[in-house]
């Protein structure tokens, strides 16, 4: 009997040797005459256990990890093909607490299915949302998404349904759905994981968005740093087109929708929606002033829905199970689930999808297990390079849009980067300014010039000139209030939070200079 073995093709797993392990397993199976079928699935998101392979046994899937090439022969000796005991055995992966305690709605299939098998996708509840949408009026689809409480998962938190309604209400022969897959924030990888592990859910979400707004063309603007995601996404789009999920008549509805992947070119600012649209049009990725909103005048001046990958990938489950089902998760104005990405100097790094509302402390200490180095947690940056650094004293902040905003931070794309007590927060503040200077599109002065002056000012403080601290504060106020987009506008978050919560790091040389 053929035994199915799952070894993630997810680039996080591959970065830890999954390709070599897969090759070794196939080689060893041939040598031993074992009949196996290899599936390169997505990752379950337990990166400290990757490469984590799974065997489909009569009693369900059994996981082993982290597996290295050197373990392969011993795994065969231990009869892992029938779930045999071995030091690396993790048992049923869904019983691992990190996974078991999650609420996986958007990531329900990620790590389970073959990413490029539409049959597998359908066998795991795929296309149910789109099938429902096909028989619904556009305005009813929009209403369902509005009622679900889904807000933009890219960071801005704008209600997705409202955005869709604006585009639906716009007349026009051609409207667009643009998926922002320019996931450039350090500490985030949810978009990458879903595109590599369950690309059909994004395709389905975009097709639903198309039906909801009468847009017939979709673009996925995917960053060039993700070559594996580009390959898998393109393969899945090809299959979807072949099977009639995309094309002139979506699932036989008579309504057209197709998708094209466009590859970015290494500019961080293109994650900002108007800059992305310019880039997609073949221009410099310079930010546009708003209004007009992209919903009115977006790609090529036409009405455009622009949503983050996770926002779109969360739509199929809403259309499948209903707005109430999704809205009942979460707290306050943060409804549904959020895939939190736990990264950096952390023991148990990975993807943790859960309802909004866990505290930062629970995420870092309990789920993440503290630092990888075993040292004290000094700071946690939430929301990417433009997110604030949180000290331990703020670990009781619940994970939600308003809750983080109230504490001078933002959840952004829900990346959580942990730093131990060796981190130099003045250095991190300097890096934030430096990064802004490198990546600024140059359109507005507070960002273009402010970031350069910011680096210089932090350097003055580093040399012991603490009289420059009010200057840095003032500069941050100007950048925050005067910048055109979030790059210049939010760079003050990491800078000011570092200064406010870790003042010692900014005064380290002060005395020496005074003497």
């Amino acid at each position: 009997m053929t035994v199915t073995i799952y070894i993630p093709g997810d680039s996080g797993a591959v970065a830890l040797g999954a390709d070599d392990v897969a090759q070794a397993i196939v080689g060893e199976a041939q040598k031993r005459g074992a009949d196996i079928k290899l599936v390169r699935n997505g990752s379950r998101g337990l990166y400290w256990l990757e490469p984590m392979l799974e065997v489909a046994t009569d009693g369900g899937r059994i996981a082993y990890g982290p597996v290295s090439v050197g373990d392969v022969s011993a795994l065969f000796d231990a009869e892992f093909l029938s779930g045999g005991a071995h030091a690396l055995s993790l048992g049923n992966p869904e019983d691992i607490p990190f996974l078991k305690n999650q609420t996986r709605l958007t990531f329900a299939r990620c790590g389970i299915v073959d990413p490029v098998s539409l049959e597998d996708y359908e066998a795991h509840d795929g296309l149910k949302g789109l099938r429902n949408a096909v028989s619904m009026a556009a305005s009813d689809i929009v209403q369902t998404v509005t009622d679900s409480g889904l807000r933009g998962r890219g960071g801005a938190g704008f209600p997705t349904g409202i955005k869709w309604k604006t585009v639906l209400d716009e007349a026009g022969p051609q409207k667009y759905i643009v998926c922002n897959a320019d996931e450039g924030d350090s500490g985030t990888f949810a978009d990458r994981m879903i595109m590599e592990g369950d690309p059909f859910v994004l395709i389905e979400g975009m097709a639903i968005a198309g039906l909801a707004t009468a847009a017939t063309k979709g673009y996925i603007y995917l960053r060039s740093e993700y070559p594996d995601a580009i390959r898998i996404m393109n393969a899945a789009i090809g299959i979807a087109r072949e099977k009639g999920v995309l094309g002139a008549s979506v699932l036989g509805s008579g309504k057209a929708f197709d998708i094209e992947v466009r590859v970015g070119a290494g500019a961080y600012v293109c994650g900002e929606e108007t800059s992305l649209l310019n880039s997609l049009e073949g221009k410099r990725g310079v930010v546009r002033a708003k209004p007009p909103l992209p919903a009115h005048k977006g790609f090529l001046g036409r009405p455009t829905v622009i949503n983050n990958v996770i926002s779109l990938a969360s739509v199929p489950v809403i259309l499948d199970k209903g707005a109430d089902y999704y809205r009942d998760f979460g707290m306050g104005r943060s409804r549904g689930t959020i895939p939190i990405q736990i990264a950096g100097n952390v023991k148990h790094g990975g993807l943790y999808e859960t309802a909004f509302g866990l505290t930062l402390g629970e995420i870092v200490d309990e789920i993440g297990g503290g630092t990888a180095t075993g040292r004290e947690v000094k700071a946690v940056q939430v929301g990417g390079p433009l997110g604030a650094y949180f000290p331990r004293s703020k670990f009781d902040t619940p994970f939600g849009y308003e809750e983080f905003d109230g504490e001078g931070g933002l959840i952004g794309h829900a990346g959580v980067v942990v730093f131990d007590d060796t981190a130099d927060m003045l250095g991190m503040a300097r890096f934030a300014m430096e990064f802004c200077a490198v990546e600024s599109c140059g359109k507005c002065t507070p960002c273009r010039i402010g970031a350069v002056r910011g680096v210089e000012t932090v350097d003055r403080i580093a040399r012991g000139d603490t009289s420059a601290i009010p200057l840095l504060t003032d500069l941050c106020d100007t950048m925050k209030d005067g910048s055109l987009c979030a790059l210049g506008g939010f760079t003050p978050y990491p800078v000011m939070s570092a200064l406010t919560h870790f003042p010692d790091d900014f005064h380290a040389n002060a005395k020496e200079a005074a003497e």
Partner: protein
Amino acid sequence: MGLDLSSDFDGNRIQAIVDEHINLEGPLLPILHAVQEDLGCIPQEALPVIANKLNLSRAEVHGVMSFYHDFREQPAGRHVVKICRAEACQSMGSDAIAEHAKSRFKIGFGDTAPDGSVTLEAVYCLGLCACAPAAMVDGKVIGRVDEARIDAISSEVRS
């Protein structure tokens, strides 16, 4: 320092690439990617050809090309090593890894070794933040990079 490509620069090849993409909505980035894929870089000679076909000025095409970090005017080395310098990797000591790489390769970030063996580049996030520090060698991702791994990469690219 001029490119030797000028003598045998093949404008027809650029024309063909442009023709292949000209019907796309917003064709310029796909064209620039395709030219770089084909020639290893985007030589200045290619710009007027592209500009002419798209009814743009040469300055506009140059402006777009120079905006994006990915596009290069000179070919890269035979191997391209990218090291992530973003926050999550910094939290796991990527600054030291970057310094080590500079001293092993004897070049700075953005530079190509004089023998053309390797180009060293900084990258800001490869999405491997839960297995930091991360690097990419010739498009292949590597997680939990340490100094020994840099040494191994160094010997590989020099051989």
